[in-house]
């Protein structure tokens, strides 16, 4: 966590500079002039810094990587270790309403057209685990005739055209050069426009911090050559993570050797989490 914050702090450099510059401008420009003077100057400054500097992480060059994520739903057993690991690794609020990653269960019963869907956050599953901070799928279909059942892990899709980044009024959330969508918690104003814009429900508002939050693919880990926490703990290899620039990486092989799909392609967001083993009911 400490390293992660340090890294984020370094990236914030230009933002803080802009923030100071902007504050000075905002103070000096009276309300009457605000519309013209401040916008012109700052827009120009923002444009000048459009090319993002490489974050000062020892031995890491974000221009050398293009991260991506794969989910093999045929392997997922719904053990929810990924959810638990993510909550602990990223200090996600330990309740049933804040998740950077979650797992959905799709069960089609005999004679039914569509799947019954629940996640670990469903009240029945919380009752089974006994606590909102312990995760379990209740054995609720024990006596039913199940025709088809599978689990689907979900997380932020780190889209190529992220709707959340598009709508952020301050630029606090942005896409890094290596393909990860992150949030600058020191700059986010907490308007939650991004929470609305994400079609995947991947973002949540952290009430304690007053900012939005989401999966970062454990950016603090991957930039050190580690795997995201959820990938690390998955006992069956249902989660695959790696660098698409490396053609031999697990993710490149995963995408190359399977017919992968993405969620809600019609949104035009172009997700970077690739799925196999999901069906029509998954969205």
């Amino acid at each position, binding site marked *: 966590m400490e390293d992660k914050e340090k890294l984020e702090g370094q990236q914030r450099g230009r933002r803080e500079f*802009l*923030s100071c*510059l*902007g504050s000075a*401008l*905002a103070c000096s420009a009276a*309300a009457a002039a*605000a*519309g013209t003077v*401040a*916008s012109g100057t*700052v*827009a120009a400054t923002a444009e000048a810094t459009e090319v993002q500097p490489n974050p000062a992480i020892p031995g890491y060059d974000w221009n050398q990587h293009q991260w991506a994520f794969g989910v093999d739903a045929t392997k997922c057993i719904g053990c929810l270790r990924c959810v638990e690991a993510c909550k602990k690794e990223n200090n996600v*609020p330990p*309740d*049933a*309403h*804040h*998740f950077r990653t*979650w797992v959905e269960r799709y069960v089609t019963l005999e004679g039914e057209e569509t799947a019954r*869907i*629940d*996640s670990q*956050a469903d009240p029945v599953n919380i009752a089974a685990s006994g606590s909102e901070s312990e995760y379990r799928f209740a054995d609720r279909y024990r006596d039913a005739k199940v025709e088809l059942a599978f689990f689907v892990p*979900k997380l932020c899709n780190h889209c190529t055209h992220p*709707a959340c*980044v*598009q*709508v*952020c*009024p*301050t*630029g*606090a959330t942005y896409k890094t050069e290596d393909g990860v969508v992150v949030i600058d918690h020191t*700059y*986010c*104003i*907490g*308007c*939650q*426009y991004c*929470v*609305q*814009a*994400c*079609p*995947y*429900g*991947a*973002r*949540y*508002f*952290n*009430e*304690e911090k*007053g*900012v*939005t939050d989401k999966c970062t693919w454990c950016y603090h880990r991957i930039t050190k050559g580690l795997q995201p926490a959820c990938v690390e703990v998955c006992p069956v290899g249902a989660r695959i993570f790696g660098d698409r620039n490396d053609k031999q990486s697990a993710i490149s092989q995963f995408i190359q050797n399977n017919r992968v799909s993405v969620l809600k392609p019609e949104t*035009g967001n172009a997700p970077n989490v690739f799925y196999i083993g999901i069906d029509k009911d998954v*969205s």
Partner: protein
Amino acid sequence: METLVQSSPFTGYVYPNETIIPWTVLIVVYPYLTGLVAGAFTISSLYQVFGFQQLRPVAHFALLVSLCCMVVVPIPLLLHLGHPERAFNAMITPHTTSAFAIFAYAAAFYVILLILETWFVFRPQIVHAANDTKGPVGWIYRVATLGSDDLSEKALSYDKKWLFALAIIGIPGAHGLHGYVGFVFGSLKSREWWSSDLMPVIFLFSAIISGTALVIVLYVVSCKLRKVPVDLACLKVMAYSLWGFMMFTLLLEGLEFASMVYRGREGIDVIMTFVKGPLLVPFFILQFGLGSVLPLAVITFLIWRGTTGPALVAAITTSACLVLLAVLMMRYNVVIGGQEIAKTGKGLLDYQPPVFAREGLFAAGCVLVLPFILLSIVVRFLPPWHEAEPALANTRTR
């Protein structure tokens, strides 16, 4: 954490993070207020630009209503932000692709325009008051003249030119600002309930009717308080405008809903369940029936019968109150309703606004009352009543 979050129960399947509704009643109040601003400004402009002389008794008052509402507009937004102290970040480094980034500029521009227009409208009164009033209040008036105390024929005609220009800029300004609020919602592809090209237009028309209705109600109330007769010709023009704009609004809303149902895209089943279930009372009964069809029928009846006198005043004022309720419900049904339909397209949430919370009903109510408190103070300093004008005219000719 438990005290900080208020989750909503749900049916069907919703994403786990969706169980906390992001935009609450304060975000219902925000487009409601901007709508009142645009609507009241329309009434003022009909006189100022298009020369509707019947609207003279309310023209200046409508301008003050617009100003008082506009000043309050940022408050619900600031109350909603997780870090209100960072609100200026959006002005300092506006993210150009965000529909919301220019709001601060648009709002600031419009507040300045309204203040300028108010100053030009009330300049003769300010100058007279500065000359006649002593003490600290007189001092305030003298500062408010900004050193411009020339009330000659030439100066006043110069003022008139400015007023005309400002009102002309103000029309696209006020309506642009509100249409843009509609765009903030309509441009989101993540929610089927919001994602509509008609959304900005519907926002705009409902804004005009809400502002007109507010000016009607406040004008009648002010007449009662000041114990002066209500100008029936003026009231009729406002009621006719209300009628016309309401027809448009209803048609547009009907078209939007029909398109959504007819297209029948993914998730329409859940939307239909929502419309027939939780939306029955807030939409069909309150917004559509009580707030739109009934006042429309009442005003149609008044026009047809040629009703006049106290009956006309009472019926139009009641209708206007209902319209105000309808537009508030429309904002609620759009903002909250949109979030009650899950992004999964497979579930519905049931949001129950808290009463006493930072984003509760009480806070929203306070924000809604604020413009009227402000207005009651402002009209004391700048009386917008045209009965005061002949006295001024006399002093001018002296």
